[in-house]
């Protein structure tokens, strides 16, 4: 690396490709830059470390998800298989999605960095793993690739890149796929590997079952551990809680949003329980929180600091409304059990508005103080 650095610096032969080169360089090394102005010492944290922490937090759900792909497939066929066979089956199905997501997404990021002449931001490290985790396992890879392209270009770079986007890029990818390829993204055949082409395999999620008026047919323990069909990452409450614990422990994700979302969802579902018109309304409130990617969204998606509200007070409102709207969509619109995705995207749009009013409050306080002091004088 030492040898090549000068070529890519300002005035070097390959200056134009500098952003790409230093993107790789900075991945290997924390650079030697020293403070030139401002504080002379700096916190050890940087964006790379933050993003890697989130990726680490996603590892439990990813590993479980991979195993669960195999487990759902073979258990429904009634075939007994060993742990490694199940895991291997899942890995063969899931890893290509991860590779496609990162390859496509990072290529676009690097291209934009070179084109705009700025450093490669690390945001996609997380989005790149999140996207396959919230897709159904049978989604064709080309659809995944197109969703990623749409999400990175329209969802992120169009707004100016990392830090400027309004909507969570991973959810943009999912929403794009959801509306463009509805057949591959919803229904009762997509959530378990090969459900569409194999007799005897039903790929319906719990919410789908409930929406069609049937009993959930799952024990609480199944839901908690995650022995159920669904997107790769969303099923296991236990693994999500492990990730949440890690994020909370490291102080990377904002606990206010997580807590507020859960409270919002719980309160809303509880009210519906009291009302109880159909099987979705009757579905116990605490089980509502355990299915349909609710927790996954609360922990990994709602907490995205760029698209969430940015004031501490705002976070409570933002989180609460996400929880509430997620359950509302679920209960009132059986065709779209993906309430969580809708809720987060909707609140992403409203987050700046919430912040606006919180900050308005601060501004008003300052104006009142000024007026008071003028009256005195």
């Amino acid at each position, binding site marked *: 690396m030492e040898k090549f650095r000068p070529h890519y610096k300002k005035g070097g032969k390959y200056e134009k490709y500098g952003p790409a080169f230093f993107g790789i360089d*900075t991945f*290997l*090394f*924390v*650079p*030697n*830059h*020293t*403070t030139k*102005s*401002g*504080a*002379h*010492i*700096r*916190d*050890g*944290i*940087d*964006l*790379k*470390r*933050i993003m*890697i*922490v989130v990726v*680490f937090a996603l590892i439990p759900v990813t590993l479980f998800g991979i195993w669960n792909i195999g487990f759902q497939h073979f258990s429904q066929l009634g075939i007994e298989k060993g742990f490694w066979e199940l895991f291997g089956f899942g890995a063969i199905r899931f890893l290509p999605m991860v590779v496609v997501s990162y390859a496509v997404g990072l290529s676009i990021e690097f291209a934009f960095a070179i084109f705009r002449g700025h*450093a490669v*931001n*690390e*945001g996609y490290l997380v989005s790149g793993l999140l996207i396959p985790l919230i897709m159904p396992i049978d989604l064709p890879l080309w659809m995944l690739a197109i969703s990623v392209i749409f999400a990175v270009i329209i969802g992120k770079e169009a707004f100016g*890149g*990392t*830090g*400027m986007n309004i909507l969570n890029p991973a959810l943009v990818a999912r929403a794009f796929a959801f509306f463009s390829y509805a057949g591959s993204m919803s229904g009762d055949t997509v959530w378990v590997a090969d459900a569409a082409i194999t007799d005897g395999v039903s790929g319906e999620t719990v919410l789908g079952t409930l929406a069609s008026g049937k009993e959930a047919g799952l024990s609480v323990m199944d839901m908690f551990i995650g022995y159920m069909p669904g997107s790769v990452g969303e099923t296991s409450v236990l693994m999500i809680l492990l990730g949440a614990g890690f994020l909370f*422990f*490291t*102080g*990377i994700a*904002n606990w206010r949003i997580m807590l507020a979302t859960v409270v919002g969802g719980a309160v809303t579902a509880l009210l519906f329980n009291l009302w109880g018109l159909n099987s979705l309304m009757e579905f116990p409130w605490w089980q509502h929180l355990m299915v349909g990617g609710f927790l996954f969204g609360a922990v990994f998606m709602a907490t995205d*600091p*760029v698209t*969430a509200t*940015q*004031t*501490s007070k705002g*976070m409570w409102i933002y989180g609460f409304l996400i929880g509430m709207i997620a359950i509302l969509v679920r209960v009132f619109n059986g065709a779209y059990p993906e309430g969580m995705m809708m809720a987060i995207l909707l609140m992403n749009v409203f987050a700046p508005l919430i912040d606006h009013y919180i*900050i308005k409050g*601060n*501004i008003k*306080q*300052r*104006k009142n*103080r*000024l007026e008071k*002091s*003028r009256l005195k004088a």
Partner: protein
Amino acid sequence: MSNDIRIKKGLDIKLKGTAKKEVFDLPRTAIYGIKPTDFHGVTPKLTVKVGNKVQAGDILFYSKMNEKVKFASPVSGEILAITRGAKRKILDIQIKADPKDVYKDFEKKDPSDLNTADIKEFLSEAGCFPYFIQRPYDVIVNPDDSPKAIFISSFSTVPLAIDEVFAMQGMEEDFQIGIDAISKLTEGKVHLSVDGNKNSFFNNIKNVEIHKVFGKHPAGNVGVQINKIDPINQGEKIWTISPQDVAIIGRLFSTGHYNTTRIVAFAGSEVEEPRYIKTKQGVKIDHLYDKCITSAVHEMRIINGDVLSGKWVRKNNFLSFYNTLISVIPEGEHYTFFGWMPFTQNKLKSISRTFFSWLTPNKEYDLDTNINGEPRAMVMTDEMEKVFPMDIYPMQLLKATLISDIEKMEELGIYEVAPEDFALIDFVSSSKIEAQEIIREGLDLMIKEVG
């Protein structure tokens, strides 16, 4: 009367090499210097030439903007050189000091006999107005103003902070006389904040309102205290002054001499013998350096001030006008292989818990000047609020400042802040933004546009 203030947000950064509590009396050195660059926004108009003889207290230059703001010589001697930089900007005025100071005689005065105008004139003649810093804008005051209040913070919470209670032993009377004089400059109150966990002579000072302050850095910053006690509104002015400078003014009244004796802490992990040094304003740094460091192990950085907001200087530079602390830390020009891996690099301090260092909050660190990352877009939108105790939204204010939206800046509280209040944001920012620089530029814009 005392009112307690508790600061909850913030961060104490403990560094290795706190000054030992012993005062070393530095022998008279040959050259002293005064640097117009210490005074933000001041264009100096010289009143002396190279070769002129000056006494301690003689005026060297004044501000072109306001002739009442005069700057006096800290020692007696002969003007040795006037160093100029680009565009003939004056960088420093060097004085070859006499073996013993000869003071200009201003005649001693009792502040209680004088009215406000007399005191102002006296302070102006003796070159003492530069000690008063005004909020808003963090610049030297306009002597014609009548401030709403005057704030003095008697303690510092910065890394390697000087302990003013220890440093000012023997200056207690000077301090009280200084306060008596200063209290006539405002129709409002003089607020003196003291470290809530200590009981010292500051608690017994008269003619002031005492506030006990508890909490982490930046609790000792006067800006934070103002925000909690009597926040600045648009159009209002508050003056601030630091405790050792109050003592200089006190000495001026009690002896009639402009005596800039001060105690400086020379500290930091690179310093072999960190300690307090008794010297005078404008002393050449290498004299202090030689007394505390005998062999340089690493490449090091000398900071005129604290590690968060001080200025980077070379050894042959001079102690800054306001300064009571010099910090020396190692330079950090090195690559770290996979340095971003969580739970590695535990020798670094962080507010996040991705380093095990959070388990040992009282550990003393020897941090270097590596940025530990690269500038990025602002992503972690909630990290600034964690270390910013004022009733202001720091990120929103920074963003408004970046786009020079004056109206927004006013609304969000630009008048209440100074760059040093954003020093911790410089430190914690995972996007490595230069918050202090942004705020300084914003304040300069306000001076230009609003005045």
